């Protein structure tokens, strides 16, 4: 039933403002935004939600989401989310973070919010690159992938191995739900939405920390066309970052 959440009319969800999004052609961020907004609309929680913008290409989401928003220092969204959620536990809080933000500078904040099982939801957009600053190596950059700071390709001997966030967080007792999805094809988009919805739902149920990792195309950072970028997601990223549920304490 791919259309379980079908509405008669498919159009911009209420939880997004009218402001056009400033992403490059084919960027995955826009798709993920729409899915989050649809979930918020469907759960009817827009007026009760606070969203947290990271530093990265999605730093402007405070303009796009039509709910209370806060933009934070690079990597610190989990700490800010913690501050908000602990003070006003009835709010729905989500943080939206890129791979540089979440898995490099924000590693400690991510791990510790997860291990504390803070009751908020993280949407983690993994595009294997620092998009905003011009395509530098990310912690998730794939072996041999060229970036502006790995001009000869990521060499694991020199630059080390990519960080697999879901796998790493799954080793902790804190997180409740961890899933990796992709938006390179429509099927993935629909799956991503289900994952996001589940994550929000379990926050509403007070069950603790959830994170949805979305493998997402960055045509500009990768220096290829949008179509090729989606192929790259499917053919290169997904084999390295297997899709699936890495932890689900609701299934016990």
């Amino acid at each position, binding site marked *: 039933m791919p259309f379980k959440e079908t509405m*008669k009319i498919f159009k911009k969800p209420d939880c997004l403002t009218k402001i056009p999004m400033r*992403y*490059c052609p*084919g960027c995955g961020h*826009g*798709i993920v935004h729409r899915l989050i907004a649809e979930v918020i609309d469907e759960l009817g929680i827009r007026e009760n939600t606070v969203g947290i913008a990271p530093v990265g290409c999605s730093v402007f989401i405070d303009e796009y989401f039509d709910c209370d928003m806060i933009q934070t220092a690079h990597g610190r969204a989990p700490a800010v989310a913690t501050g908000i959620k602990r003070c006003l536990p009835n709010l729905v809080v989500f943080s939206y973070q890129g791979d540089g933000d979440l898995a490099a500078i924000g590693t400690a904040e991510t791990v510790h919010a997860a291990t504390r099982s803070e009751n908020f939801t993280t949407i983690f957009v993994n595009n294997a690159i620092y998009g905003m600053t011009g395509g530098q190596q990310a912690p998730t950059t794939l072996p041999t992938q060229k970036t502006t700071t790995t001009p000869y390709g990521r060499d694991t001997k020199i630059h080390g191995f990519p960080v697999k966030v879901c796998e790493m967080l799954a080793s902790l007792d804190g997180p409740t739900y961890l899933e990796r999805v992709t938006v390179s094809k429509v099927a993935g988009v629909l799956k991503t939405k289900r994952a996001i919805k589940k994550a929000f739902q379990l926050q509403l149920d007070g069950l603790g920390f959830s994170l949805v990792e979305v493998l997402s195309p960055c045509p500009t950072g990768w220096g290829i066309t949008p179509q090729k970028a989606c192929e790259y997601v499917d053919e290169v990223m997904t084999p390295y970052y297997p899709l699936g549920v890495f932890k689900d304490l609701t299934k016990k």
Partner: protein
Amino acid sequence: MKAKVHIIESLCKECGYCIGACPKKILEPAPYYNQNGFHPVRITNMEECTGCSLCYQICPEIAIEVQKT
């Protein structure tokens, strides 16, 4: 006509995702430019559209609206 598809041309960035996703292959780039310098996508044959909304689902710009009729 099973569905109405509305493309907000000013938002389209010519990524081509919808073109690839449409099972009916009824989407194509227009020959002209929009204000941002892109060839916006247009629908060639509304009659064939099934309203499956795959184009909507994949569009990063939410430039496509689909209404089942």
